[in-house]
Structure formats: structure tokens, C-alpha cells
């Protein structure tokens, strides 16, 4: 730990020294970046941060909900899944981020195109994960409930859905960074707010301190999101960690 901190300090110091001694226009300096970030957090960053977070959360919520439902449903309907498989694989083969310009044309410059983009990225990841999860259901558990008189829907709710949570939670974990990428990509292309907007503005103005500042904020945001989700995971899957 001490050595890691020392390494970090040394790297920052080296960066600062290079920046101060004619490192050129693209290097900037940690001290400038820190000042810029401090100034942002005194007020002007919040609307952008909230915009990005809102687009991310809204998109993920919609994408997760639809992806999980579709994945579980098709997982339990193998015949339908076989019919739809080429369509789904085909759609998934399009690099989804490449759809951003299309969504901007459809939905304008507001939050909507980003939400749709994030939702479609999340949808596929969650779809594949919950599909895989529902195909690995223990048939003996299903039989046991059927013998008790459970309807198909009850079996779905009490066995299939909870058994798939392991996969769904894993899917959300993988989807989080992709969703962040999709949000920022959408904002880079055309927007009036959001961290991606700050990033593209900084780039256009050769404002290196702001550019590095936004990147740093995005990195921390990504780490926080993934850490928060890990905690949710530990709580939801506590039965797995239980050991006699």
C-alpha cells in the first residue's frame, strides 16, 4: 500500500515537472487539473454530472428490464428462441455505438437519444445473460414445484427468475461500463449538457486541463458505479456466500 501511494505520488510529481518545463500544449499539469476540478465542483459541474447520470440510469433501467424479460421468456420458449436467434444475433452484430448518429436524427439533441442508445446496449447484454441463466435451471427444482401444483407462471416467478439472478447480476456488472461508454459517446456527438459535452467542448478549445479533468471524473464515476453494484451483488447473493 505504501509503495503504491509512493508510486502514485512519484508519477504525479514527474507529470508536474514535465508539464512545467515545456512539456508542450498537450501535457497539462496535475496542479492545473486539480484546480479545474475543484472549480467545477464548486457548482458548474453538477448539471452535467446529473445529466449524464440520468441518461445512464434511465437507459440502463429500460434496457435491463426489457433484456431480462426477453431473455427469461425466450429461455423458457426454446422453439421461439430458435426462430428469433438469427434476428437477435444479427442486430447484436451491429456495433451499437454506431447507431448513435441515427438515434440523434430520430430523437433530437436532448437526453432521449442517449437513453435509447444506453438502453439498446444494455438490452443485449442482459438479454444474453438472462437467456443463458434461464437455460441452466435445475429441472428437478421445476419438477418439485410442478408436483406441488405450481402454475407455469409460479414456476417462473419462484424458480426460473431467482435462479437467473446470478446471471442477471453478472450481466448488469458487465453492462455498467458499456452503458457509461454509450452515454458519453452519445454526448460527444451532439448535445448541450453532460460529461461528454464537457469533453468535446474541452477538445475543441484545446483546454487540456478540462479534458484530463473530465476523464478523471469519468474514471472515478466508473469505479464508484462498479463498486456500488458489487455491494448490491453481495447482498442479493448472500445465500451463495453462506457456508456452514
Amino acid at each position: 500500500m505504501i509503495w503504491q501511494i509512493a508510486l502514485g505520488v512519484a508519477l504525479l510529481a514527474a507529470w508536474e515537472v514535465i508539464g512545467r518545463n515545456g512539456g508542450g500544449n498537450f501535457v497539462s499539469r496535475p496542479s492545473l487539473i486539480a484546480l479545474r476540478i475543484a472549480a467545477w465542483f464548486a457548482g458548474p459541474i453538477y448539471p452535467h454530472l446529473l445529466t449524464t447520470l440520468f441518461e445512464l440510469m434511465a437507459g440502463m433501467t429500460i434496457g435491463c428490464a426489457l433484456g431480462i424479460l426477453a431473455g427469461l421468456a425466450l429461455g423458457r420458449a426454446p422453439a421461439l428462441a430458435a426462430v428469433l436467434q438469427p434476428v437477435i444475433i444479427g442486430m447484436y452484430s451491429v456495433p451499437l455505438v454506431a447507431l448513435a448518429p441515427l438515434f440523434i436524427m430520430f430523437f433530437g439533441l436532448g437526453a432521449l437519444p442517449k437513453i435509447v442508445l444506453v438502453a439498446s446496449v444494455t438490452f443485449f447484454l442482459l438479454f444474453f445473460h438472462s437467456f443463458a441463466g434461464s437455460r441452466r435451471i435445475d429441472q428437478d427444482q421445476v419438477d418439485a414445484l410442478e408436483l406441488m401444483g405450481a402454475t407455469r407462471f409460479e414456476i417462473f416467478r419462484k424458480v426460473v427468475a431467482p435462479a437467473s439472478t446470478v446471471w442477471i447480476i453478472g450481466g448488469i456488472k458487465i453492462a455498467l461500463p458499456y452503458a457509461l461508454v454509450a452515454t458519453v459517446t452519445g454526448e460527444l456527438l451532439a448535445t448541450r449538457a453532460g460529461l461528454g459535452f464537457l469533453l468535446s467542448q474541452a477538445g475543441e478549445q484545446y483546454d487540456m486541463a478540462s479534458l484530463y479533468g473530465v476523464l478523471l471524473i469519468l474514471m472515478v464515476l466508473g469505479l464508484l458505479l462498479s463498486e456500488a453494484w458489487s455491494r448490491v451483488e453481495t447482498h442479493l447473493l448472500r445465500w451463495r456466500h453462506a457456508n456452514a
Partner: protein
Amino acid sequence: MPDTTMAGTLLADKIRLDSVGKNFRMRGKIIEALQPVDLSVRTEEFIALVGPSGCGKSTILNLVAGLMPASSGRVLYDGAPVAGVNRRVGYMTQKDTLLPWRNTADNVRIALELNCRAMPKADAARRVAQMIAQVGLCGFETHFPAELSGGMRKRAALARTLIYQPETLLMDEPFGALDAQLKLVMLDQLQRLTRDRRMTVLFVTHDLAEAITLADRIVIFSGRPGRIRSVHDIDLPRPRDVFRIRFTPEFARLNEQLWDELQDDVIAGAAT
């Protein structure tokens, strides 16, 4: 079967197998798991199916539960052919099918949560507590299956099956993996719970002593392909003292007699 000759007994048959056979297809080859067998089980009877592994005992349970169709013959339950899953039976498989994300109490309650026997939450909670006490799991209500020992999991599975009071209980070597002492405790509980509730029981085991201790009749199977070798009435008086009955001369006599029937197949089965 001699029991089916009288019309009166015929009506009282809870379960009847009419030359029921079962084949499986494995890698393109057809394997005969069960040669056509005839068997009738009277209401409230406790029948043990004993035989070497692979003799089709478990197949019979699956057929009665309606989890698979027979390849030939008819499976009758209350006189009607079993078509699809038979919801009148409770089935305890070899592997317990507790849901790992539910704790003991939630696992035991699951049958009471279903629409087909919807009841007020308080009633369900009371019955769960009662059932958990009956199988001796007090204090483990909030433990997850992963936190329970093998014996406790079996008890939880038994409680989960008995709580909805199925009229017939199918059990497939439910206590096979337990140590000898714990097994006796479980057998005692099983005898008490099933006799109190006047249940019909089909109990698959390879443990002859277990079968003699519990059963009204023992059906001995021979292996591969499975077929019935002989059927024996166990006329030991009830209720039986599960812990001491094995020291009685009647028990020893039955044990020896049945072992003679069984041993050729067991030895042959062990050699394969």
C-alpha cells in the same frame, strides 16, 4: 398380483401398475430400464421397493409422479391413468431440491404460497413453524440450505413435502447419505408423520433393514433390466419402535429371508 383378484381390493388400490415397462434411448440405442411389471398399492399402505441400483425402482416413482410416460402398459392412480404431472403425490428425490436462495422457513413454506392453496400469511407461518418443529429444525429457520448439514437438508425437504399434506408420498432413497444413527431418527419421524396422516407411501431404498422397519409390504426387484422378483408382507405390529425393532427375532427372521432373495442380485450388481 394376488391382491387384485378381488373387486373390493381393486377399488381400494391407490396406485396400480398394469404391465408397465420403460425404455430409455441412450446414444441411439434403446435400453430397457424396466421390464413390464404389475404392482398395486393399497390406500394408506407403506410399500418399500428394494433392489440393486439400476433395477428401475426410481423409474417407477417417476412414472407414478407422471414426470415421464410409460413405454408400455398403464399407470393408474385412483383408478385413472396418470397423464402428465401427478399433483396428488409429494415426491422426495434422492437429491434434495431445496431452493438455495430461500432459507429453511421460506423453503418449507413454498407449497403454501401457491395459488392452488392460497391461505392467509399468518396461517402459513403457523403451519411452517409447526412443521419445522416436527422435523426438529427449530433454530434453523433463517439458515440457507448451504448452511445446513446433509441431515438437516433432508429434514427440511421432508417438511417441505409434508406441509401441503399430499395423500401419497414417493421417496427415492431419501436418507441414503445419512449416518446410521441419524437415519434411525429420520425413519422414526417419517413413520410418525406418515402414519398420523394416513398417507400412502412408496419408498425406494437399497437398505433392507430400513425397508423392514417401515414397510407393510416389500417389493424386491432384480436388476438390469428391472423386474419384480418377489413381494413380501411385513406383518410386524404397528407402531414400530424404529430404534429397537432390529433386535427382535421376527426382524432377524425377515431380514435373513429377504436377504436370501436379494443377495444374488446384489452380488451380481456389485460385480458390474
